[in-house]
């Protein structure tokens, strides 16, 4: 089981690792399928769990300092970064759902990820959510927004971000 990671001091992650089941579905050459064994000749070691870490920052701030709470009137673009670890070999599809405080979908985007021929230790995707000048500040769509990410249809992580009035 992968340990939870925090984003700076303000992290509040919900990480749901998933392992061999997904690997069996999508990987051609993982330990799950090749049957490679551990050094002591016992069962093969489980593949490392896929994890995703979601972080946010305001593109209009210096160095885009990560945070989980923003003043809606001051945010220019909300940068949503998803840091993947232990992606199985092959091509994958990340689905990122941005849910409004009411729970309804605001945006759903898909991004391709290519791990190549081996497990990819780390990869990061970035999604820009425009805020300044959009209906978010104009119509005061504020409160607890939820970001969910999945890989190849398997939900992996979710993270709340607060847009304050």
């Amino acid at each position: 089981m992968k340990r939870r990671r925090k984003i700076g001091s303000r992290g509040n992650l919900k990480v749901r690792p998933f392992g061999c089941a997904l690997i069996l579905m999508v990987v051609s050459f993982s330990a799950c399928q090749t049957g490679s064994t551990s050094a002591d000749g016992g069962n093969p070691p489980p593949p490392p769990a896929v994890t995703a870490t979601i972080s946010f920052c305001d593109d209009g701030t210096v160095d885009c300092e990560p945070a989980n709470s923003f003043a809606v009137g001051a945010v220019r673009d909300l940068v949503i970064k998803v840091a993947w670890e232990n992606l199985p070999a092959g091509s994958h599809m990340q689905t990122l759902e941005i849910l409004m405080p009411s729970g309804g979908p605001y945006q759903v985007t898909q991004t391709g990820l290519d791990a190549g021929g081996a497990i990819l230790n780390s990869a990061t995707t970035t999604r820009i959510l425009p805020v300044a000048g959009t209906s978010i500040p104009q119509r005061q769509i504020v409160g607890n927004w939820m970001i969910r990410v999945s890989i190849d249809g398997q939900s992996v992580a979710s993270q709340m971000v607060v847009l304050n009035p």
Partner: protein
Amino acid sequence: MIAQLRVAQIRRIAWLKAWSMLMALFMAGPVIAREQITIQKSGTNPQLRGADATLNQANPTLNLSGQPTITAGTLAAGNEHAIVQFDLSLLPNVGVKQATLTLHVITRPTAARTYGAYPIATFFNQPDVTWNTRVATTPWATAGGDIPGGATATAVVNAIGTTTAQFNVTTDVQNWYNATPNYGWLFKDQTQDNSGPFTVFGSPEATLSTNVPQLQINFVQNVSNFSATPGNNTITLNWVNPTPITGSTILEPYAGVMILRYATLPVHKSDVPTDGTTYAVCHKFAQSTVVFVSPSAATTSWTDNSACTANLADPGGPPKNGTTYYYKIFVFDNAHNYSDQPIANGTVFTEEISATPGASAAAQQNSVWVNATFATDLAAPSLFPGTVIMVASQTNLLFGLDPTFGLRKYPPVSLGGPIFSRSPIIDAADSSLAKNVIYVADSDSLVYAVATDTGQILWVVNPTGAATNAFQGGISLQLKSIAGGASNDIAIIGTRNGATTTGNEIVGVDGNTGATKWQTIGNVGGVAAMDIINTTPLVDYVNGAVWVASRSACAAAQPSLWKLNPNSGTVLATASLGDIDASPVLSFASDVLFVVYNGNHLVAGTCTAGNGVLTAINPVNGATLGTFNTGDGAIVDYPVVLGSSSPYTIIFSSKTKVQAVTFTLGTNTFAAAWPAPITLNVPSAPISITGSAYVFVGSNDGKIHELNATNGTDIKDEVANTGQPGFVGDPSLDLTLSRVYVSTTDQRAYGFAYPF
């Protein structure tokens, strides 16, 4: 003898009754069924929205589309992927039950190979698509095509004997009818070992019709023209049962409709019937109740006289005055297949309607239609009055709706990214393309021309060539039919690249071809720094200009109002007013330009919101004529200007109010037009026209408000979104049908007749 005659007479009467009932049934409604159709490009089905290509890793920048064949293989020189996209326009309003894709094998591999069918996850443009790129300069996220990790289905092609490859693609097609964009399929070898084998399949352009790919779909159609008429403690529902689609085969007799009801909220999206299950009246789903199951396939009307007991917010029994009731209708066949997509937790599309009974007409409400858009989008729907409504979404879909009953004219158009603003529709008589066309820009940095009659993408371009130049505002068009000259219509739009406060740009695109005519780039070629553009440009035919409003890095030190030559992009004038997020508007005579700047200012390095300032500008020289401080935060989206000559009335929404002011040219003064601003819960932009008695505005209270244009009095409201809060977007007015259209955050668009 008498007894025998009587028996014979009874038999004859009984036979005549049966015959007349059969004839009545036959004449009242055609026999319909769960249908099956095979979609294939042909002379009668041109598949205008279809596409195909081969992506070749060995020639990664080569476009191989429109060829008679497509290839999937794993050659020594590199892999090859085949892509096929079907146009499903024959089936705009259906529940999909089964979908089978057949590719015809032209050349078999040297050894048996297994091929997978994958739904493509990102937008591509057939004339541009290559191994590396999906649209001109826009690369795939993963070279060779963006696809999920697993194939939807696989098929084996043997070295000997195999003539077709068939894939069960039911889930993909159902997803396409449940909010997932349809970008077609990619086919590839399941073991890409570069060992050499490949298979050549017939493409939609195959010379022999027998080699053209086929998509066979079993489906149940929805009803059309679903309406609800409120009365005094009554609601009457009407609908039109479907007729078989031309070319389809009837598999199951059509049996009737089932109607679910809920009160105060729409029927929950998870309340959908399961195929093969029979439901009795008063069956309770998680939230809603079955209130009607039609006794025959000919039934087209029902007055709600429900005797069902209460279910959560539904008080049960027949409708009660003052309560809003929501209905969802499903067609079913003899095998009880229903007209929805059976996907757990999916966003299910079917026909919906709502009505509120009342003791008097004034107390009654009803939507004319409700349409599921699966997404949040608060931009005003675009429309060709009385002909078509185009509703954008933030899930990359563009819906073409019939304005009378809100039915989809075709399955939604799948674009590259979310669309945030209203897009212009130009009718064929006025368009240099001579087509009914909508120009759309999205956050995928792409601009599209889409035929509103068919949903066909006529062209798509990345006009700036950069993937970071997303579009937030809408497009403005300089029409050749008005401007004259030799140039085609010109589509003009500004970029929203949040990473720069100086390097955004305004671009002009040929409306017929999509070719970039000019680019005006901040800090390039003597142009001043240009911040993000959240607004829609405004073409000023009288003064030969296009006006564009931008932000200005939260200060007034760089321009935020731009006056350009629409034919060349040359900057004619600028004004540094501070951040602007509302689109500029002109008076009817083009003698005053109204612009609203936000009043944003820097406080300890942080951009802080201020109060919007309505500014009257001389469009000839750009001079400021007068200002009016709204005192209530920034203005929402755009003001509306009424009147054919000065004094003009300007109506606008701010953070908590709707206000109307007059502006008198000459004295250059603003004055209040209404006794007092109207306080609403975060209003949308208003809509009205000169001479109208009404102003319509959405609100976060879930309603669309009908205001008196003279004094602002809130006359009557219609419920459009029951969410908490219920955000209602900017309304559009259809003067031909006397309708107001609006989209909301509850993933729907609504039509209402006005006056309310």
